[in-house]
């Protein structure tokens, strides 16, 4: 009985308060951690120092002996970086409800594995053997989780979204606010075209195939807006059956992982510039973490694969503008509109949802605010520098260390995607949802390609220069 009462008590958090939102949603923790690191970096920079000592990252190496020497020379820094991550991410994880004593050992394993993959990616033959860190992290994780399996004690450390959101906040530090203002409207227009068309194709083909409208809407937003996050946001807003949400999640995850490998390879074979490829991936991938894996992979080709124009950062920048600014931020609007339609137009269910405009803010991906704030802070700090001084002082002393920290968080996320994806766990989706979703994927990929490489290609190419 006491157990029942305890369980019942533990569910009493269903009524949210402002404080519980700020402390119990990982979006806000990504902001606190990401902006905390940016603030520390700026404070040190303003006092003539730099965060770069602790933001250690591997350098290019040719032989194992070089790599071992690097590791030995910077061992204290790598240990300090682990402490920094374990403390900052650990506090966030503890606030979310994970026990620190379980999170830290799991995170230690993740950190060591991510470090090994980061080092491998800096091998001077890595590009020759297609050993791009995101693909290696994902492939290795998938192999482990689907063969020998992941021990339960490791699970608290595998928080894909927590890491990727923290990384996106840090990414704001390398994207000037002026660039976001310049490129944002084009990203929104391109993303709006693709999102509306993809949603329409999936929704109407699903309804034509006889599927329930709530499943059709959940599938549609999963494919058109923001992947698994879109599926759960709309599933909840329209009151879909639990199995319908599971079907949408399964389809999104499988297609998103396929696209991590397919989109960079297709773009590479077509010799797309990094800016154009990033925009295409941002239009046609389904989830932030999956898309960033694909975009970072493609950015790694710049300078290593002949015929790929543009700088490495452009792929990730274009992806983020397209996916985060163009698609993610609109999920609350989608949720409100679809819940309104569900309550007024669709057949009633035993559970009555309530359409409420407050939904737009409640479901807003708050980490985007951290991304914009980081961009604004660095833009402000860089304002007094001309380009030469920026390259000489601001880039190595402030921006590059934050980029290195971002790469760490992304590597944690990519490895966690693989380690948490167990193909056997996915529900049997059925033929009709598969056909409807796959048709949407096909339209999305083709339309995203045409818009990125033809209609807006000049724009995305300029972003990469």
């Amino acid at each position, binding site marked *: *009985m*006491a157990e*029942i*009462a305890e369980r*019942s*008590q*533990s*569910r009493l*958090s*269903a*009524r*949210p308060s*402002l404080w519980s939102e700020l402390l*119990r*949603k*990982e*979006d806000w923790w990504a902001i606190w951690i990401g902006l905390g690191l940016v603030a520390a970096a700026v404070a040190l920079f303003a006092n003539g120092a730099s965060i770069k000592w602790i933001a250690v990252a591997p350098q290019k190496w040719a032989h194992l002996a070089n790599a071992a020497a690097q590791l030995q020379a910077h061992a204290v820094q790598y240990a300090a970086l682990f402490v920094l991550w374990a403390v900052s991410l650990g506090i966030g994880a503890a606030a*979310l*409800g994970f026990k620190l004593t379980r999170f830290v050992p799991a995170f230690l394993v993740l950190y060591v594995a991510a470090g090994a993959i980061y080092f491998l990616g800096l091998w001077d033959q890595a590009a020759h053997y297609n050993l791009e860190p995101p693909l290696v992290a994902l492939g290795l994780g998938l192999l482990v989780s689907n063969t020998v399996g992941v021990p339960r004690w490791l699970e608290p450390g*595998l928080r*894909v*979204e927590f890491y990727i959101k923290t990384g996106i906040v840090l990414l704001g530090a390398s994207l000037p606010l002026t660039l976001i203002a310049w490129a944002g409207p084009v990203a929104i227009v391109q993303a709006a075209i693709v999102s509306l068309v993809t949603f329409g194709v999936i929704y109407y083909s699903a309804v034509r195939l006889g599927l329930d409208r709530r499943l059709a809407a959940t599938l549609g937003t999963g494919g058109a807006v923001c992947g*698994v*996050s*879109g599926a*759960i946001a709309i599933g*909840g*807003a329209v*009151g*879909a*059956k*639990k*199995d319908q*949400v*599971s079907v949408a*999640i*399964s389809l*999104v*995850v499988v297609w*998103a992982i396929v696209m991590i490998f397919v989109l960079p390879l297709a773009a590479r074979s077509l010799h797309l510039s990094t800016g154009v490829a990033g925009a295409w991936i941002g239009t046609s991938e389904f*989830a932030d973490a*999956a898309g960033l894996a694909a975009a970072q992979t493609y950015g790694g080709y710049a300078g290593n694969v002949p015929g790929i124009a543009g700088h490495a950062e452009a792929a990730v920048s274009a992806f983020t503008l397209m996916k985060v600014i163009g698609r993610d931020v609109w*999920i*609350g609007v989608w949720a409100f509109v679809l*819940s309104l339609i569900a309550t007024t137009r669709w057949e009633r*269910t*035993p*559970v*009555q*949802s*309530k359409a*409420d405009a*407050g939904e737009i803010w*409640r*479901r*807003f*991906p708050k980490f985007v605010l951290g991304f914009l704030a980081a961009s604004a802070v660095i833009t402000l700090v860089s304002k007094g520098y001309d380009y030469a001084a920026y390259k000489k002082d601001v880039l190595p002393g402030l921006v590059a260390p934050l980029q290195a920290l971002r790469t760490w968080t992304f590597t944690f996320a990519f490895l966690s995607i693989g380690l*948490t*994806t167990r193909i056997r*766990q996915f529900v049997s989706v059925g033929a009709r949802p598969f056909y409807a979703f796959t048709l949407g994927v096909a339209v999305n990929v083709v339309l995203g390609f045409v818009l990125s490489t033809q209609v807006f290609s000049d724009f995305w190419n300029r972003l990469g220069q």
Partner: protein
Amino acid sequence: MSSVRPGSCADCRHFNGRPLDIEAALPGLSSLSSAYAAVRSNDGICAVHDRYVAASSVCASYAGRQLVDSSASRRRRHES
């Protein structure tokens, strides 16, 4: 912050909005998203209708959580 109405799913004992339970019930959710994400708002799983619903939803099968809590407390006092 909240638009939850009295007598809504948020207060119902059949409603489970605990993030880890939601992630366990929806395989793949934690691979590319999370039950701790802002986009989830305060949605949860209704054990009666087997639906994924907003905390502000209502239905005829509502069963107040406080009744269960107070009866559990009474039983605990009785057992002790």
